[in-house]
């Protein structure tokens, strides 16, 4: 089943008197349960594509159906609801609320989903448990290591049971070893049947995915399945 169906999408920015085609003409499908990496050098349009896929931004042209619903013309509030219920974000810079503890950070999407406090806490605890941080629930981001912060962010992305997980350079701010741990976690999440879209510019990170979409100058250069997929070894930090 298609989760994401994109047809001839373009995103055009007006910079001064010049038009910049961040996305020129992109069409693609992503099915439920896929693990896809989007690759490309900077300026290739992968960030723009990620923003569009994540419903943070709408395309200038083209059709974007998310679970058979056309989201390309939705207004801010409708997009916010889609983001809240269907999409889990993991960012390069973690993007946690600095003054809130891990539990509250994970709870946050559930607040905006209108879920009552007790159920929220319960689900947030479960999600933190999933990523192996059940003993860090009341630590603030500055009391956690980079890897732990990213795990909190992943727990936050998972807590709403979204249709897709959108990870933007999730290992970009981590050392290689910690990055490997995080990628292992993504692998486990993928094995659970979750749909993951990974945006990266590093080949060896992209190779964790089952399919790689390569972008260049706002166009899809190549869309291929990975033949030699890199499967990280399970390191036992998570309880998935």
């Amino acid at each position: 089943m298609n989760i994401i169906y994109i047809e001839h999408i373009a995103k055009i920015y007006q910079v001064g008197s010049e038009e910049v085609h961040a996305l020129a003409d992109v069409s693609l499908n992503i099915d439920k349960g896929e693990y896809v990496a989007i690759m490309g050098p900077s300026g290739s349009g992968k960030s723009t594509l990620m923003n569009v896929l994540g419903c943070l931004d709408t395309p200038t042209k083209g059709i974007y159906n998310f679970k058979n619903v056309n989201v390309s013309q939705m207004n801010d509030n409708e997009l916010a609801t889609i983001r809240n219920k269907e999409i889990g974000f993991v960012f390069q810079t973690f993007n946690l609320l600095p003054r809130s503890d891990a539990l509250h950070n994970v709870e946050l999407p559930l607040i905006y989903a209108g879920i009552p406090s007790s159920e929220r806490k319960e689900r947030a605890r479960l999600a933190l448990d999933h990523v192996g941080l059940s003993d860090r629930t009341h630590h603030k981001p500055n009391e956690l290591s980079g890897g732990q912060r990213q795990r909190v962010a992943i727990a936050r992305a998972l807590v709403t049971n979204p249709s897709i997980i959108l990870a933007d350079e999730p290992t970009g701010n981590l050392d290689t070893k910690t990055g490997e741990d995080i990628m292992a976690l993504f692998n486990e999440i993928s094995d659970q049947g979750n749909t993951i879209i990974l945006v990266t510019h590093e080949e060896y990170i992209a190779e964790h995915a089952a399919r790689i979409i390569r972008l260049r100058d706002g166009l899809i250069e190549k869309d291929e399945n990975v033949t030699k997929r890199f499967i990280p070894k399970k390191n036992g930090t998570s309880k998935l």
Partner: protein
Amino acid sequence: MSTFLFELKEGLLISLRAIRANKVRAILTTIGIVIGITSVVLMSTAIKGIDNAFQTGVSSLGSDNLYIDKWEWFNNDIPFWELRNRKNLELSDYEKYKELAKLPLAVAPTVWTNQTVKYKERTVESILIQGTNQDYIGTTNLTFDEGRFFNELESNGGRQICVIGFEIAKNLFPRGNAINQDIKIRGQKFKVIGVLSEQGSWVMGNFNPDRQVFMPIGNVFKYFQSQSFRSITINVKAQNSLIVEDTKEEAIGIMRRIRGLKYNEKNDFSINQQEGLLTTINQTVGVIQIAGLFITSLSLFVGAVGIMNIMFVSVKERTKEIGIRKAIGAKRRSILGQFITESAIICLLGGLVGLILAVLLSMVVNQFLPTTVQADTVIMAIVISLLTGVISGFAPAYTASKLDPVEALRYE
């Protein structure tokens, strides 16, 4: 409705977290509101005090009293020269009126003069000496601390006796025992036969009964001024406030007859009553009120601008946070609510502190002007501070709610 309550509750919790995270800033910002609310509350309390003082003062004139006089007391519609050219009211007018009037409860003539009153080495200056007769006490609500008013015999016989007001007694006889002492006015001795209890009508100045001396009217004419020199006033007390107007109509009719006025001639006398003074006072208090509240609300306005300013800074500073919240599904409404709630809480806290300060300060003011902070003022202060928070928080909150999540997330 339940979603609204849910969002309100969550908004409150989020705002409280944000305020706790920035305690010093919140406190500093609040000071503006504290000062604003303190001054507004204090000012409205003081104005109430002033108004009360006026009302008490006026009540010494009596709501069912009429004062027939040559002069119009409170109304400036009649030109001065016309009033001046009127004939003086004389004792004979009083006698005729008293004979003809059916409605009044009591009628008394009065005439006044300003004198210095002495007892031994003690002196009180510019005291209103009221010359009147035994019926005067019936036209007032005056009560006595000691002694009594003079009777008909004493009044007609022109005995050199007097009744003194509370303040005069306090000044001349600090240790009491005023009764049967002789006070001196312009070299004449007058025996004190009564001391009035305190009326507290200090706003009336010299017309405050606490600062008056009462004596038989004949004495005033005999020792201080000739009868032809000054017009008398006829004090009339109606039987009750319901027939004040009837009593007034009757008085006009009788006075016109006494004066022999033709139907097309204007009254050459005035019927004065408390109402006239009340109108004047209400106008004055109204002006004080508007001016006072305008000036104090300026300080509240400054406080509100301070809040707005700091909320703008806060929104700018927390752009990233807003981006994160939006990315994970916060709607515009949630962000708007969050920042408005935050500014409303800051203002409400400021308002409460301001209120406490104002209550304490009003206790100090109370030493000079009887005032208390009343329940409606408390409610007003709370509502105003909440409103200030909502209004001054709106523009920054709106800016925050309009932020583009992509831009906001990229902000460092």
